[in-house]
């Protein structure tokens, strides 16, 4: 007998998302403004490459044809215009970028792109040779954290990878914060206030009394944190 398999219907999902765009505000005469752009490009070529650019045309009065000319002028400099702002949408050529509204100002880093690329690969682990004291918060999203000493009550260790404590873990340890469910937490003595892996956590209350003060590891079993002795 044949079993019929209904093709799964894909549901279209709409999602909202916000991005940060550079806003250019051209001024009259446009020629001078383009010279300024050229000067910026001469200082750091490729500064605008791949960055979303929005043209704010409220300071200039351009026809649809004039806008198209400006957009193509920018395009010839490698600057692609994502949208327009400060003009009426009606009467604009359909080939022009869409008119955006509702933009809000925000700070953007003005840092020029780094000239020297670090040739070394990013360090996958962070070694702390001193105890982590109450009130200290160590965050290393790039990989593992190893502590040669204890982690005090009220201290917090946050790692993208696993956490190794060669001492007593009394504070909080959060491993696999970037969605790494395979991350684990190891310590020589567990008295933790909280352990978390990939967002799942257990507080001190949940950690069995029989485990306390013993070497232990915490790992994620599905959606449940397991804490097991190490010896």
């Amino acid at each position, binding site marked *: 007998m044949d079993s019929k398999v209904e093709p799964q219907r894909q549901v279209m999902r709409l999602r909202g998302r916000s991005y940060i765009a550079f806003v250019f505000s051209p001024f009259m005469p446009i020629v001078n403004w383009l010279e300024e752009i050229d000067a910026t490009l001469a200082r750091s070529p490729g500064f605008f490459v791949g960055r979303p650019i929005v043209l704010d045309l409220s300071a200039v009065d351009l026809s649809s044809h004039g806008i198209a000319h400006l957009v193509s002028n920018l395009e010839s400099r490698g600057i692609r215009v994502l949208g327009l702002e400060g003009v009426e949408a009606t009467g604009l050529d359909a080939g022009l970028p869409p008119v955006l509204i509702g933009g809000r100002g925000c700070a953007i880093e003005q840092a020029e792109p780094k000239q020297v690329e670090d040739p070394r690969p990013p360090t996958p682990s962070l070694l702390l040779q001193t105890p982590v004291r*109450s009130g200290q918060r160590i965050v290393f999203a790039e990989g593992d954290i190893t502590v040669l000493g204890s982690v005090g009550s009220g201290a917090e260790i946050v790692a993208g990878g696993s956490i190794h404590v060669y001492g007593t873990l009394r504070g909080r340890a959060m491993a696999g914060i970037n969605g790494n469910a395979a991350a684990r937490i190891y310590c020589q003595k567990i008295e933790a206030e909280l352990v978390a892996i990939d967002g799942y956590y257990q507080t001190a209350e949940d950690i069995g009394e029989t485990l306390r003060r013993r070497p232990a590891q915490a790992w994620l079993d599905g959606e449940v944190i397991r804490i097991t002795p190490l010896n």
Partner: protein
Amino acid sequence: MAKVLVVTSGKGGVGKTTSTAAIGAALARDGEKVVVVDFDVGLRNLDLIMGAERRVVFDLVNVAQGVAKLSQALIRDKRLESLWLLPASQTRDKDALTDDGVRDIIADLRTKFDWVICDSPAGIERGATLAMRYADEAIVVTNPEVSSVRDADRIIGMLDSKTVKAEAGEQMKKHVLITRYDTGRAARGEMLSIDDILEILAIPLLGIIPESQDVLKASNVGSPVTLNDAASLPARAYTDAARRLNGETIAMMVPTEQRRRFMDRLLGRRAA
């Protein structure tokens, strides 16, 4: 070479001021030239414990702001002539102190004394960070109970990050001083044990000061406990602690339950 020492704890009421006065006096009695500096601007106490409250004219804030000269603000102790006090202001608050002002005063005191002992205010805010900022060494005072020990741990973290010495990449020498150690409660297991405290804080032990009425009696008469009754248990423990600071090796006494039998169990642990 002068040594600048900060007496700090995070938590209030653990015995910073009592310890500052007692250790300062013990060092001075051993012939060192000592100044104790009250950093608790707004809530000064050290002048009372030292019995100098009626002789305060100028204070730390006046000197920091250039209103008075250091020599005008320093008060010489009436009992020991190598012991001096630089009082805090009671009418101002901690914001009256500036980083530069404190730096200059400490630098000046270094040229005049063997020991500059800074009595830190409680807390982790400006007053406490300025008191520790220019120190070479620290005494972290704690009581044998969890909240005090956790606060001490926090303060040790700050000593290792917010002091000039730490910022220069050097290791600051730190000692833990356990105060108000109650022999009766220790015997009944009602306090954190010495071993637990040392395991949590992971810094060397400078001394264990027993809980005693002698401390209260001494502060009521305005005298450091080491001068008021030098033979009392806390006085002897403080004197030993001061000598360890000065580099002597003295076996650690753990106060025990029996009265009149303080010459007791040796812990076998040595001071830093």
